[in-house]
């Protein structure tokens, strides 16, 4: 019996990301679910099951940073990898300081993402 594949959740308001990223994560060997907003993610059962969160920073409504703070407030220990289209080093340092595993600027390569996930939660089985 194989170990169940760890669940990774993608939260991004950009539809092309939500389409493309879960497929790639599957190729990496993870289970993936996509959410269009932090509110949607917080309301789902993925909140308690996700090992890692791949999170956009700039979104309408709650931002990626808001979700990071909310999870910390709820005591959820989910590793977070931020992805952002705005190349802003100050913001990057800030989220890392808040405990994020990594912050990648879009567009990022598939290997950069894989390295980040593996360093955050270890290799899938």
């Amino acid at each position, binding site marked *: 019996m194989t170990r169940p594949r760890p669940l990774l959740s993608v939260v991004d308001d950009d539809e092309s*990301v939500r389409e493309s990223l879960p*497929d*790639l994560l599957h190729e990496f060997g993870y289970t993936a679910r996509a959410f269009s907003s932090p509110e949607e993610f917080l309301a789902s059962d993925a909140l308690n099951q996700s090992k890692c969160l791949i999170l956009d920073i700039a979104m309408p409504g709650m931002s990626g940073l808001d979700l990071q703070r909310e999870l910390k407030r709820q005591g959820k220990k989910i590793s977070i990898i931020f992805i952002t289209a705005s190349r802003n080093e100050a913001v990057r340092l800030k989220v890392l300081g808040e405990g994020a595993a990594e912050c990648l600027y879009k567009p990022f390569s598939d290997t950069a993402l894989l390295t980040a996930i593996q360093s955050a939660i270890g290799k899938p089985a």
Partner: protein
Amino acid sequence: METPREAPLEEVARLRLCLNNLVSVVALPALWTDKAPQQIASMLCDALLGMLNLAFVLVRLNASDGGGPVEIMRVSEVLKTESEIRSVLARSLDDSAPLQWPARARVSTRDADLYVATARLDVNGEMGIIAAGSERADFPDMTERLLLDVATNQAAVGLQQAYVLVEQRGMARTLEDHIAQGTRELAATNEELKKSERNLKLIIDTIPAFVWCMLPDGSNEFISKGWHEHTGVSPQESGGWGWMSVIHPDDLPGLMKTWRDLLRSGEPDETEARIRRHDGIYRWFLIRAEPFRDESGNITRWYGTSTDIEDRKRAEEALESRSQDLKLIIDTIPTLSWSTDATGSVEFLSRPWLDFTGLSAEEALGFGWSVAIHPDDGPGLLQYWQAALNSGDRFDVEARIRRFDGVYRWFLFRANPLRDETGTIIKWYGTNIDIEDRKRAEEELRRNDAFLAKAQRLSATGSFSWSVDTNEIIFSEEAYWIFGLDRATPLTLERIASRVHPDDLQLFAARTEAARSTGEGLDYEFRLQMPDGSVKYLHTTSNETRGVNGRREYIGAIQDVTQRWLAQEALNRARSDLAHVTRVTSLNALTASIAHEVNQPLSGIITNAGTCLRMLDADPPNILGARETARRTIRDGNRASEVVARLRALFSRGEFTPERMDLNEATREVIALSLNDLQRNRVSVQTDLGDDVPLINGDRIQLQQVILNLLRNAADAMSDVQDRPRRMLLRTGCEENGNVRLTVQDAGVGLDRSNVEKIFDSFYTTKSRGMGIGLSVSRSIIERHHGRIWAEPNNGPGTTFCFSIPRDAEAHS
């Protein structure tokens, strides 16, 4: 002296001589006939001196008319001086002289001893004395004594006759004189009488009065010729009671009454009545009558005169009417008037004065008027009044007078003294003029002035007026304060200019001259440089007005806007910083947005491409999945290209809307819009807009953005220039190929030749704070007009930017 032994011959000769002498002496009176006493005395002396060989003979005649004695003297040649003998004789000859010869005396003179015999001329000696002197000691001998006696008697008789004759002659002359005098007087009296008669007639007929005579019963006896001529009534008609016909009917009863009273009392009197002239005109006469009485006191005649007093009467009436008018004027004009005597005691108060105060004349005369004076003003007024009375100077003071209803009003008291011929003041005439309204206006004015001064102080705004023609300048208090000028020294343009900041002097002079020559309003800012080195920023506005006499005058305000200017400066700096930050921020946002917009689809492309490769590499390859991801890759690629197209549009926003436009006009609009900014930066703009510039087809708004951009760049390039004028020159013109060209020449920091090509590239800037977008946008606009934009360094300092566009941009598009 007897000489017995004398020879008889000598004796005979002596006697003969004596006789001869006697004969001569006796003959003397015949010579003396009609002679005056002094002549007689003289002839006697001459005769005796010769006959007796005497040293001197003297006759003293006592004056018959009571005057002093007269002495006649003859002296022999032997004796030197007559005066010495006289003085010697004066001592011995007096009234006690011997009655007759041979009384003798010896007198000594300086030269000789003289023996003198003296005798009275008459028995009493009243007529005088005679004295004879000889050097002989035996003088007078017997014959000499005889001769002297006879001569003396003869002289006495002759003199007596002479005196009588003199008296007779005097009487006769006096009588004749009296007769002659009487005759002359008589003749003169006759002449005078004749003249008097003539004169009286003349007087009666020519004096400007009629003379008449009435009988005691009152009927007329005589009236002078003039009356008849005046009335045209003949003496026959006027006689008796006929004269009454010419008396005015209204005056006749009164006249008759007076006449009856007169006849009864017998006392002189006078009355007035009108007498009809020959032409029917009545004239006033003064009629006077005087009684004439005989020795027993009965009135025998009434004499009188009638004097024409028409003119006097008229004058009196006129005077009366004038004084009525004057009284009417004094009592009607709304001025309170009064008069006092020399001591200041009021004698008269006009009706308006009494009406105003509600006092009666009795209450107010003298010094009673003072109750109507305000208690606060009374003492001062009286003091002034007393001083004026003392000095005789014109009196001029203000005080409040209580109106009848108790309300006090301000009055101006004025009085002038009236002096007689000697300069002594005999009266004072005065007026009180109601100045309440003026006083209030003054108060109001003072208050307004105070408000204005306060307002000017608070708003740091001074006001001024400038008479263009006379260059007379008036400053308000605040204006003086702003300029830091002393009120004492007269204001001139030069003095004001001395305060103007050296950099603004040209501006100040140009604006002032423009105002003077064209009458254009003033509205600009300039600076002052104060003596302590501080700088003030002023804003002045003023407009030309026409003052009194139609003179050109600028009236306006000068506001010290230093605080506002500094605040504005700070604000501008802040705004400019903010604008820069905003520009930077929005550019960052733009960059971010560009990145975001581009990176999103790129991110999708790469992810999908990576997934696709992994699916194809899997064993077995996931062809279905790979196809799907490849499809998404293409979709995201398209999306990215749309983003790029949208970005390009960002740099040339807006529609291109060409129109027929005048480049010169568009340029002037831009200059007008920018003028305040340019002036603030102390950039002077000169223009040389060519007459030959044709209308062009272009987007007016976009081209104006280019011009504005060039203007601002030029101004910015000169912002650090301190050592030369910040001058900018805008030119337009037509090129040979028909293109229109605009050049903007500045005197700024200049441009490195190597940079000339780069400056129109995006994001290139030589400015420390610039973003370098303006010129690249300008280039894209000019290029849309199918034109060309370039820059070239000046020969001197600064750069010239130019653009050139074809006349018809649309034809190319």
